[in-house]
């Protein structure tokens, strides 16, 4: 029995190709049409892959035809940039995918959930049998080990999550924090939502246009503060998110200094995501004030991504160990079954037990 993987991903294909092949193909059809013993379809926004186990070789073109949702398309499946991995290469590829090493954003953990879901769908429909069971269970284990023993998931890689991480490094528990959103833009809304999702109970919104402030307040259960009185809120709040379209800074060091003196033992975290900036850079010099603009947040996100990339070598080492072990265990399993049956077909229960 051979394990194989045929697919395309963000490395090889553009969005158009991923959309074209990432339809709602029924894995049963593949089993019927290609003669695969087992098959599993992993389709995400960045990859479409079929994992299979078969006695005879299933051609890449057959898989591409099966995945092609636009049958009448003038583009032929032959021209699509499919890759193919067999046996050990297939095992290594899946382990890399599940661990987030192969992801567009290195170390993202969403792929593991998607792989688990794909496996569950294939298992419940009967498309995934003992071979894929063993392969995927091991992949989930490898992913967990990579996450535990490397820093590949460390650090936030988007502006919103960087802001939330920094807030947590300043305040610890965000359940006692008060946040003021100044300017009801899209990024500030996303950041505010991310903070609320981490437990911020007190959200206030202030905007020149009262209507947009009302809209955002309804979406995030925030309290609306009149734009004229927002500076008074600085005495109470812990986090200020600014994203107004003002051409001149709304907050200067001179304006903020008296307020900071009043709240000397409480830090103030200012997230200025406006362009041009709403807060004078000199504000960061005030004691207990931590000012981050969009450039610094993006730079931290890039830094985190670079740190994650540095962890790839350590992750690959763990993956290589598991690939070798998996190969050995498969060989052992096959030699045992060859001794007992003419057609090797390992029962799912026995494989699960041996895996455990």
């Amino acid at each position, binding site marked *: 029995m051979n394990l194989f993987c045929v697919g395309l991903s963000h490395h090889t294909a553009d969005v158009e190709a991923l959309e074209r092949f990432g339809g709602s193909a029924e894995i049963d059809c593949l089993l019927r049409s290609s003669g695969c013993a087992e098959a599993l379809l992993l389709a995400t926004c960045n990859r479409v892959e079929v994992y299979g186990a078969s006695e005879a070789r299933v051609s890449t073109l057959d898989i591409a035809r099966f995945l092609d949702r636009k049958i009448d398309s003038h583009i032929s499946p032959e021209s699509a940039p499919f890759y193919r991995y067999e046996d050990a290469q297939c095992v290594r590829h899946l382990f890399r995918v599940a661990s987030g090493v192969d992801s567009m954003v290195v170390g993202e953990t969403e792929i593991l959930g998607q792989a688990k879901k794909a496996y569950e769908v294939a298992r419940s429909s009967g498309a995934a049998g003992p071979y894929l069971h063993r392969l995927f269970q091991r992949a989930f284990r490898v992913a967990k080990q990579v996450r*535990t*023993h*490397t*820093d590949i998931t*460390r*650090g936030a890689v988007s502006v919103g999550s960087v802001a939330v991480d*920094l807030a*947590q*490094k*300043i*305040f*610890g528990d965000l359940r006692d924090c008060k946040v003021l959103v100044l300017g009801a833009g899209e990024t500030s809304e996303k950041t505010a939502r991310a903070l609320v999702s981490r437990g911020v109970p007190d959200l206030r919104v202030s905007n020149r246009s009262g209507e947009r402030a009302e809209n955002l307040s309804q979406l995030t259960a925030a309290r609306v503060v009149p734009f004229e009185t927002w500076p008074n809120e600085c005495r109470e709040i812990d986090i200020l998110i600014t994203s107004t379209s003002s051409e001149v800074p709304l907050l200067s060091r001179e304006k903020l200094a008296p307020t900071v003196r009043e709240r*000397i*033992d409480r*830090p103030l975290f200012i997230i200025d995501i406006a362009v041009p900036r709403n807060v004078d850079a000199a504000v*960061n010099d005030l*004691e*207990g004030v*931590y000012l*981050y603009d969009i450039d*610094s947040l993006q*730079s*931290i996100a890039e*830094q985190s991504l670079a*740190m994650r990339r*540095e*962890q790839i070598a*350590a992750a690959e080492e763990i993956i290589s160990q598991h690939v070798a072990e998996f190969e050995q265990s498969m060989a052992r399993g096959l030699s045992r079954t060859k001794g007992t049956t003419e057609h090797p077909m390992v029962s799912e229960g026995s494989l699960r037990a041996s895996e455990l």
Partner: protein
Amino acid sequence: MDRYLLIVSTVCFLAAIAHTVVQLRGGIFRPVRFNFFAVGFGFILQTAFLSIRGHALGRCPITNLFEVVIFVAWSVALFYVVVGPAYRLSLTGAFTAPLVVLLQVFALIAPIDHPHRAKLPANPWLEFHASMSLVAYGAFALACIAGVMYLVQERQLKTHHLHSIFFHLPPLTDLFAAITRLLWWGFVLYTLGLISGFFVGEPLPWIQIVCAIGVWILYALILQGRYLRWFAPKRVAALCIVGFSAALTLLWGITFTAQTHTP
């Protein structure tokens, strides 16, 4: 025999430092309890050393500068073992170990372990006074360590240059809460030690009394400043470092004068 215990204990603390340095250089720090167990085992060996010394002397083993330094190192480790996990400051082990190593290496190398010619008579009040004061030093030392951690974390947040250590250090507010509590613990224990000093029944050198009261005033001012919000958290953290450095210097003076006044 007892010095060997101390050497092995120092090696344990060194292991905690080496483990952290290797992990941080590799960009990874896992709170795998290694530091906690390394410091914990080092602490057990320190306790064994002090116990053997105590039995040999027939009193609390703080009769010369060597024993005092080891007792301070033991107090630091004691507070780490008790307070460290409670405040989830897993990295404090890495910050605690260098201070303990510094103290113990100094004690082991410097010729300061002078045995007393005559066996000192036991004086429970004196022993209580000295031991309480030194345990308070342990709390002040850990507050100083938390202060260093606070300043490291604060600087990274201010300059926007986040190093690998940033992700492993506790949040600023948690560190500041730990500093405040440690200062209070140290201050209360030190006050108890100071008060008990008036009941020892022996005349103490005036310089010793002045130094001891000086340390008490120093920490009282830091706490008062914190309470009345004269100082920002960053200043309190810096003052913890300054305060402990000053207290350690004064301790030297206290121990030195105490040694010259005992037979």
